[in-house]
């Protein structure tokens, strides 16, 4: 059952130092090597299989990259006015493959528990996220605003990494004019989850971009905390936002301040624009800030000339 004659090399000197690897040993090693390799390969394949089965599922085709969230107050504004807003936004979304989420303010009133109605924007954004679980960015834009330069996409205008990097205002007081809390100087564009601008008084809750993810759930939930709502902030959710970014570094660390005109240019009649915050031709957006709260103003009247300008441009194209 053994070799009839042992291999020659081994016979030469039974007490001498044998060659490091005998033939048989080499064969065995080779077999072990092949076996190990095969096992590793099998494990690798299995783990890959397992990983894809539990990992995050792929984004379905046709998912809009940006969702524009608008809270419409059908109780206070005429249907014609609201239709204008919708038309303007549908056109913009269609051009760039975005989608619109028009929320009805009345739907969220029970959740507000008596807080001012403007708080409804927070559950509306959360709702938009729940209905579009794969979209990356959510753009909350106050209803009283128009896209005036619809050819600009949000990506090229704000969201692109290099563009955002150039827009971000670093190391400036986060709440104007002179908050001692300043935006982080070392913040990078890829860490940004929340893009806001400031007017001359506050951070603008009427126009901000937020990336969907753990941060957005955390941020919207804490912003909507019942104890904030019941605190009687003078400007409701806007002041609550001011408070949040100044007291909670985990929010500040994800926040990029950008110049007001980028996403939040105010009309001439609006108060509170910063030095370079008033709308000029060619800006992406015009907002009629405060037209719904200040008694002397009328949103419908203010918007009309701009809406016609936009419609005329649309026809000319």
């Amino acid at each position: 059952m053994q070799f009839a004659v042992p291999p020659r090399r081994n016979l030469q000197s039974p007490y001498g130092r044998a060659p490091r690897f005998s033939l048989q040993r080499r064969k065995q090693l080779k077999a072990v090597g092949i076996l190990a390799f095969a096992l590793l390969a099998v494990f690798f394949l299995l783990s890959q299989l397992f990983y894809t089965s539990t990992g995050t599922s792929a984004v379905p085709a046709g998912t809009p990259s940006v969702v524009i969230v608008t809270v419409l107050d059908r109780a206070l504004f005429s249907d014609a006015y609201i239709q204008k807003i919708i038309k303007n936004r549908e056109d913009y979304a269609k051009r760039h493959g975005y989608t619109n989420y028009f929320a009805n303010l009345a739907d969220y009133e029970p959740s507000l528990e008596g807080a001012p109605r403007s708080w409804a924007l927070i559950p509306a954004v959360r709702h938009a996220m729940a209905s579009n679980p794969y979209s990356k960015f959510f753009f909350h834009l106050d209803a009283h605003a128009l896209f005036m330069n619809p050819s600009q996409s949000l990506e090229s205008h704000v969201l692109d990494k290099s563009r955002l990097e150039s827009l971000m205002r670093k190391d400036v007081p986060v709440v104007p004019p002179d908050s001692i809390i300043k935006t982080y100087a070392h913040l990078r564009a890829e860490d940004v989850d929340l893009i806001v601008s400031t007017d001359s008084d506050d951070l603008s809750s009427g126009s901000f971009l937020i990336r969907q993810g753990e941060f957005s759930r955390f941020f919207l939930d804490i912003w909507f905390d019942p104890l904030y709502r019941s605190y009687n902030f003078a400007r409701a959710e806007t002041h609550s936002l001011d408070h949040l970014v100044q007291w909670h570094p985990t929010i500040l660390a994800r926040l990029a301040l950008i110049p007001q005109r980028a996403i939040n240019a105010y009309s001439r009649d609006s108060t509170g624009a910063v030095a370079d915050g008033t709308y000029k031709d060619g800006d992406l957006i015009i907002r009629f800030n405060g037209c719904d709260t200040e008694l002397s103003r009328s949103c419908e009247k203010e918007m009309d000339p701009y809406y016609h300008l936009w419609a005329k441009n649309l026809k000319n194209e």
Partner: protein
Amino acid sequence: MSSGSPSPRPDGGRGWSTPSLTPHSGRSTPRSSELLTPASVSSNISWASAKAKSEEVRGYPSFATRNNGFFSRSKRQISATLPRWRSPSGYDDYAEKDEKGVYPYYGAGRRGCSPFGSGRSVLRRKRMRLFVVMLLGLIGYLYMWSALVERYRRSPFGNGRKFVIVLESNIEGGVMELKGAREWAVERNSIANKAAYAKRWGYDLEVVNMLAKKRYSHEWREGWEKVDIIRETMGKYPHAEWFWWIDLNTWVMEESYSLQDHLFNRLSDITYRDINVYNPLNISHPPTEPYLDEVSRSATGDGDVSSINMVLTQDCGGFNLGSFFLRRSLWSERLLDSWWDPILYEQKHMQWEHKEQDALENLYISQPWVRSSTAFLPQRYANAFPPGACGAGGDPEVHYSEAERDFVVNMAGCKFGRDCWAEMHEYRELSKKLNRTWWEQVVMPSSYTSRSTTAARSTQFHHTLDPTLTSPYLNRNAQGGGNERTKMPTPESASFLAKKPTVAPTYDGVDFEDNVAVHNARDAIIREQWVRSMMSRLVGEELGKCYHREGVNHMEKCGVLREKYFELLSERKIKGYLGQEKNVFEKA
């Protein structure tokens, strides 16, 4: 290739293994024995000794395909040089038992001895050496094995560095209260207990000082250091994953439970994420608001273990933060960040009796993102209560069970009407008794019987006191009750009197020839002066807090403290003893 098969078969093996040639069949392969035959058979010296010698020369057997490792080589040497313990392998290849089931060691030994002749003394020396080596090995095992294991667990290969135990300490030593012998004993023992546990499993132990800091009283956030401390600790141990906060009044009963085996390796099996499983606060769960996403509206979050970032226990009154786990993650950073908020606290600080605990409950109730990463542990897994907390005892959900060897006991609320040190002492002894080694059980079973009977009366913890710690201020806690923290130390209080030295702080009646008496008097005088000085300082601090708290009403509200402060101010300076001593001399 059957010849390559290293395991000899009992029947066919006889073909190649002959009694005197293979010292221990199954260890040397057929081929090697066959190839060695010419040398060993022709001369009549023992094959084993020849082989041993040859191995000294060659260093390793040349043909063995299997015995190349260091251990198998030395094992063969051992078996070759220990004929007495060798089995008669030649006759019955590897079966060490014969048919009758008798171990034929001695017969085999005698038989095996006979071929040894000339090499005998060499062998004896070798045997001696081997014996010494084995003895040393045994001693090394006994004394160093646990140290080695601990070293391994702490190393990057072991998982010990993934866990940090954060233990609060010095809670009594704040402004409000002085610490007595029992508080010191509690602290010392509790820290030693956690230190031993951490050392055994290679965890890090961070003992944190809860001394009331001025910063927090100014910001209206006394008792909120917990949050900041956890954040600091997370920064201090960048390699750690889980942080276990544990209160001082706790005892790790079973040091042999590792956190990995006891909890974290089976987190999905033992935790519940749907709070309806046990819901003393009656929190409505899951959230039903239509605007929330699916995960937030689900009762069990996403159901994936990896999304658990905080592991809590609940007692009969709601969340219990006496022993909880927090994982390093963005989520927990956010939680620690939002835990304290001035606007939330401003509105609620009157209602939030348990400060950070209530705040966390509030976060859990009102913010869905907190729910989706929080898991609850049945209380007895990491936070069992003694009888007296949450009922008189015997509740299988809440109370420590000796029979089931619960992991940790938390003497929650022992400061209010119960005796922390007595309870801790009781549990320490019980833990010792439960975990004694077989040796201790054999040698001194009697010394524990009395202890075990006291442990059996566990419902009466607050009556059983450790005789070594009897002092006049024992029932201090009982009389203090809930308002204890607001009490100031005064010269009249029992605790203060108890800490007073026995020697009077005066030279009256001291014989100046007696050096000991003089020194004792000096000590007492100095001590008394320091006590006075410190008292004025404490009252001053209280006064400052009172001013801050009362604002414009301080004239009215802080009067008592102000009077007291002025009264103590004159005694604030440490004057020393020499003045009095000299006056005494002048008198004399």
